[in-house]
């Protein structure tokens, strides 16, 4: 390993640590592009699961779009916050689909 190589490793470790801290502090401030990417991927995965349950919500799509737009404008704080909102919405829609598996029967006309 060359000297510059070691420096690079150190640098990326430092970056990883910063990211971890940023991740923990979450949407508070100073989010990076990587934070956004991780938060966005988590939201997308949850929304995909909602799709497989045939129960996506339109506000989830809106929050994902807002996240993308903010990231394109370089506003990663907003991008992360919107991604997290999208993930929470997608998770709520998953929860709804699961609890309705049997709950729908309560509304049935007999």
């Amino acid at each position, binding site marked *: 390993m060359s000297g510059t190589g070691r420096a690079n490793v150190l640098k990326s470790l430092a970056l990883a640590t910063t990211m971890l801290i940023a991740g923990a502090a979450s949407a508070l401030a100073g989010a990076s592009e990587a934070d956004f990417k991780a938060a966005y991927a988590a939201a997308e995965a949850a929304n995909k699961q909602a799709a497989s349950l*045939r*129960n*996506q*919500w*339109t*506000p989830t*799509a809106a929050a994902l779009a807002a996240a993308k737009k903010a990231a394109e404008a370089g506003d990663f704080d907003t991008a992360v916050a919107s991604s997290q909102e999208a993930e929470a*919405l997608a998770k*709520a*829609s998953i929860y*709804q*689909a699961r609890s*309705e598996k049997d*709950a*729908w*029967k309560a*509304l*049935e*006309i*007999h």
Partner: protein
Amino acid sequence: MRSAIHFASAALALAALSFGAMPFAVAADTPDPAADAKAFQKFFTEKFPKVKLDDFVNGPYSMNEDMHRQWEEKEQFPPYDFSLDLGKEMFAKPFKNGKSYADCFPNQGIGIRQNYPTFDEKEGKVVTLELALNRCREANGEAPFSYVKDEMAALTAYMAFTSRGKPFDIKIPNDPRALEAYENGKRYFYTRRGQLNFSCASCHVQNPGERIRAEVLAPALGILNAMPIYRSEWGGMGTISRRFTTCNSQIRGVPLEPQSDEYRDLEYYLSYVSNGLPVSGPGARP
């Protein structure tokens, strides 16, 4: 040892008891579409004792006398006439291969709206009229129409018009897949969805006649008999597919693809429980 045996036989007796009770439990859970339809119609006729059974097909206009007068006025100069004319013309015009829609349907497609959706035992799935029309086009080398646009509305408007007054006559053949499709449709109808957490039933069973924004909610009984409909709000015609997707988005749910299995099954269920009510389409709405 003795008490253990006693214990075992007590357990057996309990098991026997619960087995004895089983047939009832099963009976309550066994799909019974005929009983569903009867209960469905009873629910609405009891909730609205002044509305005649056949009048439920007029949707929001069946809900009070003022609305009914509005409807009668509207029917004098029906706003769907342009669509009906277009549909009639389209229906008669041969495809490039010389065949036409009439070749795809029983009785040349005239007076048959009340039989849709049907259950296709070969495919093992529900086939709606909109789907059958596009399949007819594709089988004859024509591109399918959008399910939510004017052409499909015009064709179904014409086919409904030739069937006006005929009672819905949806059949569930003796095929477990047909019963399953019916059950899936029922589940879809009662399942809450969207961020607003509403099911179709929340609006069209629990609140028909109530206003939501400027609109009066139609009762679920006979809710498809007037389709397709002209809506002033749309400034045009809407198919069943258009109505389903619109009703899903307004509760902040992402609509499914038109003619997805779920929507086909939903249409099957809703049509079946309205058996006996007349075709009144095309309809006009505020």
